[in-house]
């Protein structure tokens, strides 16, 4: 008779690297959907942007350690990569907030539905359009910086080493 305890199959939720990977894919896919208002329609674009804040916050929660130590690490940074990573991450965060804020300020569906009157300024229309275009190459650079981590994790997952 086999007396050994049955081994529970490890889920991606039990591994921090896999959790980050899955949530990052979810974030990227939701970001791509939010970036295409011409495809989804303005109403869906605005509501999805509100929902998008959830995977965005989860992304920060999963990298909490980095955020809490980022300023100390920046001061001690020895390589250009570390400094570049710090500047790029915070630029991306600020730009993301700017895109969201400017998007809410040019809302034609979300705020009127909620009964909040809004006078749309051309300044915010321009800012929303320009910052949403700028955030894409910045995201590309962010992904490039973590490309090795993504590649290694995919290889390890294929080999079932993680």
């Amino acid at each position, binding site marked *: 008779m086999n007396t050994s305890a049955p081994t529970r199959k490890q889920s991606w*939720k*039990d591994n*921090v690297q896999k*959790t*980050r990977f899955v*949530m990052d894919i979810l974030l990227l896919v939701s970001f*791509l959907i939010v*970036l*295409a*208002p*011409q*495809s989804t329609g303005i109403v869906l674009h605005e509501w999805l942007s509100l929902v998008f804040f959830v995977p965005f*916050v*989860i992304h*920060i*929660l*999963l990298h*909490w350690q980095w955020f809490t130590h980022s300023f100390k690490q920046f001061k001690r940074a020895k390589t250009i990569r570390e400094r570049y990573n710090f500047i790029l991450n915070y630029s991306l965060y*600020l730009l993301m*907030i*700017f895109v*969201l*804020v*400017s998007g809410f*300020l040019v809302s034609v569906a979300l705020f009127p539905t909620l009964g909040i009157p809004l006078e749309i*300024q*051309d*300044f*915010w*229309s*321009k*800012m929303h*359009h320009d910052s949403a*275009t700028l955030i*894409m*190459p*910045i*995201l*590309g*650079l962010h*992904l*490039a*910086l973590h*490309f090795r981590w993504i590649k290694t994790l995919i290889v390890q997952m294929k080999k079932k080493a993680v």
Partner: protein
Amino acid sequence: MKFVKKNWQSRSAIIVGISLVVGLLMITLEQTPYASDINAAGYQHGGEGKPDIPAVVLFILPFVKALVLIGVPLLIARLLANILRLVSRKGSWKN
């Protein structure tokens, strides 16, 4: 999701709080002369009416645009990083 759930309420409150403060500070940009200039000049992007292309293409194009704008800088950055790594390796061999 144990990695997210650990103290998630307090940590999320900090993220949302900081983001709100940053967002409110950004709204003050509308008081700048730059904003007034844009508001005075007016702004419009995209042409009037629908372009004469199939609906499927119209649906796919924004995603292609996003993928190109993300993908091209990604590839250029990877290429530059590889070149820099090669150059630094060659430099270390010489020394």
